[in-house]
């Protein structure tokens, strides 16, 4: 396998990801913003496909484009009383822009001066079967800890958001 990926496809999908992110930040309607974020996440799944990370792309679609988008839309639905509330005033902040630009410049200089490890050429890339067998051997312990973390977070989320008579 070559040590590069197709440039035209990468640039097109990358433009989708960045353009959707810009759309999310510039729209005034919070529901539209959620759908722009969904588009950005789906574009990211396409990038993972191009990077030969099939399993990560599937998880990205299921978790971000599925669960997180639905969760965000539910939160919007439960916290807006009227339809007009979804349209917000334009949030613009010079301080935030300056901080973000400064941080971007810091990243720029860091990446420019970074010495990356050499790119490796391989005969073939490992597939999803290899990924699965490594996940359940080398990465067994983090996998179990992750499932425990998800359980605790689920119970905690229900506890925080659920209302009983005693609270």
């Amino acid at each position: 396998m070559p040590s590069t990926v197709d440039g035209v496809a990468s640039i097109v999908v990358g433009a989708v990801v960045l353009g959707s992110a810009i759309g999310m930040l510039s729209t005034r309607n919070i529901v539209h913003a959620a759908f722009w974020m969904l588009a950005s996440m789906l574009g990211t799944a396409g990038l993972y496909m191009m990077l030969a990370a099939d399993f990560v792309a599937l998880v990205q679609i299921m978790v971000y484009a599925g669960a997180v988008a639905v969760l965000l839309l539910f939160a919007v639905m439960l916290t807006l009383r009227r339809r007009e509330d979804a349209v917000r005033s334009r949030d613009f902040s010079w301080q935030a822009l300056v901080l973000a630009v400064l941080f971007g410049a810091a990243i720029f200089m860091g990446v420019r001066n970074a010495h990356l490890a050499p790119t490796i050429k391989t005969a073939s890339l490992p597939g999803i079967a290899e990924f699965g067998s490594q996940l359940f051997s080398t990465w067994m312990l983090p996998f179990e800890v992750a499932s425990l973390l998800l359980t605790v977070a689920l119970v905690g989320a229900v506890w925080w958001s659920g209302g009983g008579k005693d609270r």
Partner: protein
Amino acid sequence: MRVGVEFFIWLAAALFVLGLYGALSKRSAVMIFMSLELMANAININLVAMSRFLTPNLMTGQFFAVFMMVVAACEIGLGLALVLALYRQTNTIEVEFLDQLKG
């Protein structure tokens, strides 16, 4: 035309800066969480790209990206639960009104 690991690093950097701007400038708590997800996404792109180009046989970055997604899913679930709890107490999710701790 072919692109290498640098293209994805620059893409992730741009996405991260966009998310940072959103997280700092937005006034709705839900919009702040969306921006945080953008930033997490940028980091995942970096991890997967490095994994593809620098350690293609070990796939270390892919495993890190999957665990990162677990943590991000926990974060947004708990965060939105907090938003709902706050909404029930104060009837608003605008962060500028959440100043009860101000001296």
